[in-house]
């Protein structure tokens, strides 16, 4: 158990180091100066920057300096905004986190429920309907869902009824949060429900379900006490990838609904070739997800009594 925890932490750390190195080399390969892009800036500033980040030193020293900066938490200064990237993240991340958490909770809870219903009512209209919704969900990209929701529920609904149920943009008040959270969660919700259905059907065909039935338990007790707990395990393992999908999905959803979160900054930094901003946010995202994955892995080990932790994922 302890060995497993350490192993997972070690791999997460290794992944993080590789990500930092990767980002460093990518930035070096970018056209233009790694820290200023293709902008013209005064000679003295450039010199100061070069000295600060050690750009006049050999590559390996630069890499070490970069590592040093990153692990001290210094992600550099955004060229476009001329502000430390850390500041921007500190300001913007809470919005993204709020949006992401809402979407994550909604997607997992609704997805699990939908999956359970589909599996228990297998072959009925309930099953067909929920799986139809799920396949639509995985097939329509978030930016399309977002745009359509905004168009119909924020714009048209307001025009038709004269009442603004949902604001077009922004992140103020509960009503403003509904459409973006839903748009972001839909594809994850669909993924979870499909997975949960398969997993649930698999569990329901297990012998121990027959045992439970032979004890005289009701269908309800069998589903909730015996099946759901076991069926949820595979869903837990995809929480990591789902967080990643929500995070990247937020890039576009934040753009559509003009939410001042990190996704919006990230996309904008790509369009403006703001190199430090890109590398800084990339590292932040990467680290965030690596830690999220680590937590999911550890949680899985604690939840499932069968698995000796060293065997997880083998």
């Amino acid at each position, binding site marked *: 158990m302890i060995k497993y925890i350490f192993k997972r932490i070690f*791999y*997460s750390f*290794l*992944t993080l180091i*590789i*990500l930092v190195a*990767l*980002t460093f080399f*990518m930035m070096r*390969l*970018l056209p233009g100066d790694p820290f200023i892009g293709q902008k013209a800036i005064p000679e003295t500033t450039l010199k100061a920057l070069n000295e600060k980040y050690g750009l006049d030193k050999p590559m390996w020293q630069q890499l070490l300096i970069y590592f040093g900066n990153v692990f001290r938490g210094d992600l550099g200064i955004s060229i476009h905004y001329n502000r430390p990237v850390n500041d921007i993240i500190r300001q913007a991340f809470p919005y993204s986190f709020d949006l992401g958490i809402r979407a994550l909770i909604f997607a997992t809870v609704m997805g699990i429920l939908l999956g359970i219903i589909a599996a228990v009512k297998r072959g009925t209209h309930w099953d067909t309907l929920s799986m139809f919704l799920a*396949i*639509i969900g*995985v*097939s*329509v*990209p978030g*930016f*399309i869902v977002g*745009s*359509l929701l*905004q*168009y119909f529920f924020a*714009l048209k609904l307001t025009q038709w009824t004269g009442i603004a149920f949902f604001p077009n943009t922004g992140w103020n008040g509960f009503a403003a949060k509904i459409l973006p959270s839903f748009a972001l969660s839909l594809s994850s919700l669909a993924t979870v429900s499909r997975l949960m259905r398969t997993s649930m059907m698999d569990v329901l065909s297990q012998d121990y379900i027959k045992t439970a039935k032979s004890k005289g338990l009701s269908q309800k007790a069998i589903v909730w006490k015996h099946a759901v707990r076991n069926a949820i395990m595979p869903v837990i393992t995809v929480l990591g990838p789902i967080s*990643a999908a929500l*995070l*990247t999905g937020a*890039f*576009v959803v934040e*753009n*559509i609904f003009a939410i001042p979160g990190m996704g919006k900054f990230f*996309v904008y930094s*790509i*369009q403006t070739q703001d190199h430090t901003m*890109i590398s800084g946010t*990339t590292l932040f*995202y*990467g680290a965030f*997800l*690596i830690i999220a*994955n680590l937590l999911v892995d550890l949680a899985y080990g604690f939840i499932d009594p069968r698995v000796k932790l060293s065997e997880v994922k083998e």
Partner: protein
Amino acid sequence: MDSKIKHIDKSQFERIGLDKSDIKTVSGQNTSYWKDAFRRLSMNKAAIAALVIIIIITLFSIFVPAFSPYTISEQHLGHTYAPLGFRDPTDGHMHLFGTDSLGRDIFTRVWYGGRISLFISFSAVLINFIIGIIYGGISGYAGGVVDNIMMRIIEIINGIPYLIIVILLMMVLPAGTMTMVIAYATVGWTGMARLVRGQIMSLKEQDYVVAAKVMGARPARIITKHLLPNTLSVVIVNITLSIPSAIFTEAFLSYIGLGVPVPLASWGTLANEGSRVFQMYPSQLIIPAICISLTMLSFNLLGDGLRDALDPRLRK
């Protein structure tokens, strides 16, 4: 039943003994795996409809740009944002899907975009397939330390969200269609590799493979003749289900501004352009959006259908 029954004619009790020819007919019929799978697939209406849609979209993408009276970058500034079915008064041709901000024919552009999007997705998935099957095959077949190292590498690659790597690559490489393919293929193969490895790991313990090994078959032969054919069904399903993911990645990257450069167009770049004027001219986004979604939906439905059809455990 009681044993007092009516008299039975003596001739009925003539002994015929064991009829060897009977023995075979007694058992159930054996249907071949692929034939059976095909029959099951053809019974799945949604999957067949999806297949038809995929064929239609592919054919349109191939032929519409070639036969259209317009090119993708031909501008008609006289009628920008023309509505659906607008007939051009100057040349009498119809803009079936209207025109965009520069008066370009959306019908032509959508199918041209389809070409690019489908080309990127198909090539990326093909590359993933090749890398995945080689990497997974070697890893699974070799086992032991080699497998351990190869799997750790995959684990690390998977530890970083793939879209972030793709975005970084897209920024470094020159913009273009092949860049998209390469960027996606750099990270997309891990799923296939894991799948192939898992299959091979479980198959190589099977008796018939052990038998081939004992008889002295070389590893390459064991992999190609015994392991791969058995891995084929899961691989086919995986390929079908990775295409929508590739289409999504292309659309997503184009949407955030990392798509193919002008004058090229893909569904993603069309959606990106459309989204800027969406609230005024919804059809500008809705048309490429429908193409993207319908194609992804069709591949997902087909993939699901294939999985159900090819899964021998469902065979009864």
